[in-house]
């Protein structure tokens, strides 16, 4: 099950990240997971939120450059070697990860990770076969 990540282009200017977060906060959008990809001169903010449709509309209305990306959220055993066990499976099946980052909170005793795959559909097939729990949009809204 894919979930929606929102990517926001951030130019290298003071307060730009604050602008995004305060806009979302003021409209009751809750950020569940977040990471920033930074380069020398600009950044891309990646977030998973509880109301993604509303959030992107809001961002675009406020002149932010934002777009959707399909990602997969996976439950990982919260113990030493937990992530390694998942990565082993993915590696054995030649599934390439472009990037990944952690959730702000968890809704069970397991950690939640957001993963962006080179081939999302293929990655999902592999994960399903191995009975690795993939988190749904509904579950995220309910966090």
């Amino acid at each position: 099950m894919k979930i929606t990540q929102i990517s926001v282009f951030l130019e290298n200017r003071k307060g730009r990240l604050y602008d995004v977060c305060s806009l979302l906060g003021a409209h009751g959008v809750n950020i569940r997971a977040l990471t920033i990809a930074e380069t020398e001169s600009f950044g891309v903010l990646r977030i998973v939120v509880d109301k993604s449709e509303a959030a992107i509309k809001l961002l675009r209305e406020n002149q932010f450059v934002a777009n959707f990306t399909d990602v997969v959220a996976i439950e990982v055993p919260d113990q030493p070697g937990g992530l390694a066990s998942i990565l082993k499976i993915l590696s054995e099946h030649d599934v390439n990860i472009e990037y990944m980052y952690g959730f702000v909170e968890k809704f069970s005793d397991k950690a939640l990770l957001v993963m962006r795959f080179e081939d999302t559909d293929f990655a999902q097939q592999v994960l399903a076969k191995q009975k690795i729990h993939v988190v749904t949009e509904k579950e995220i809204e309910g966090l």
Partner: protein
Amino acid sequence: MMDIPFWSREIETAERSRIEQIQLERLRDTIGWALKTNLYRRRLTQVGIGSPDDVKSLADLRRIPFTTKDDLRVSFPKGHLAVGMTDVIRVHSSSGTTGIPTVIYYARQDLDNWTDLLARSIVATGATSSDIFQNMMTYGLFTGGLGLHYGAERVGLTVIPIGGGNTKRQIQVMKDFQTTVVHVTPSYLLHIHSKLGEEGIELKDLALRKAFIGAEPHSENTRRKLQDLMRIDAYNSYGLSELNGPGVAFECVCKKDMHVWEDAFIVEIIDPQTGEVLPDGQEGEVVLTNVVRRATPILRYRTRDLAFLHPQGCDCGRTHRRLSRILGRTDDMLIINGVNVFPSQIEEKIMKIPEVATNYQIHVDKKGALDRLTVKVEIYPKLFLGEVSKLEALKHRIVEELKASITISPGVELHEPGSLPVYEGKAKRVVDERPKD
């Protein structure tokens, strides 16, 4: 009275009347060649000049219309060529105001004449065949490198054709070969000075005593600073690729502005608005006619450089008038570390890239002693898919596109739409924050 060195004493100290007589003879020859080109044939006949004999005196020059960079663009590639390609032995080109470059062709005797003017210039500064000459200007299509190279060889200096850039190597070579003379932009020599410490080199390890400086505007303060820091004499040089390159005008040992070699160039200073020729001493646009070039004759070329001519002679005894340093430009051309860049060249490229919007800004400042050019563009929202690698690739592509046109690598900044200033009416695209000293 100091000992004044000359390369061609007779011509360099000739009476005014003799210089004008030479100019008239050579102008007639040049008209003959110009009449063979598509660019000038109609222009000249329209003003009643159908043969060299129609030029009776130097005053007739004023009947001829000016030539602009745009005229050379329209004539690209060969509309201004007066000889067959068999007789052309070299080509140089410089940036045009758009993607079309300005091309100059040289016949054997053109290169010979140019080389001689540079030999004359080099000797006028007191350099001799015992000097070690490190030529730090860019070689290639740019005229700065090769021009001085051949002039220095003719005088007999030991030439190190190192070309531009690679500061570590420049410093090492200056030390290894005990370089005594360099040809360089003022900003690059300041940059080299700032890096000596890092290389563990002190001035006493070097033997430098002279610098020929040109290709970018600089103040008398900058020259003094350069001379004090490096403990050298720095001589100003002036030229432009349309008129050969360096060697149009050069300072002598007196260092009081640059002698225009008037047996090769007819220099006029005009009011850039009206085109009226101004008297000596008044600032205006420099207009040059090269009277010793066969393959690409150029008549009354509007350089867009602002300067004035000194009315009185020089302590060195040369009779060729002196041109002031360049005081400004009549167009929006930028000079970035000695490289000429037109904002229109940048605009042309930006407009062809679909991922960026039409608003952009050209930003120029200093990083240390060197100029830094940054082009700021706004990304087009619909083409943002969230991937950093795509944005990096876009940035890289813009750099490459611009580099192909302006020859230097600019910094490129991606901005959010609407974040760059928008102007009503004429946009202010260029922000130049370089200090004016």
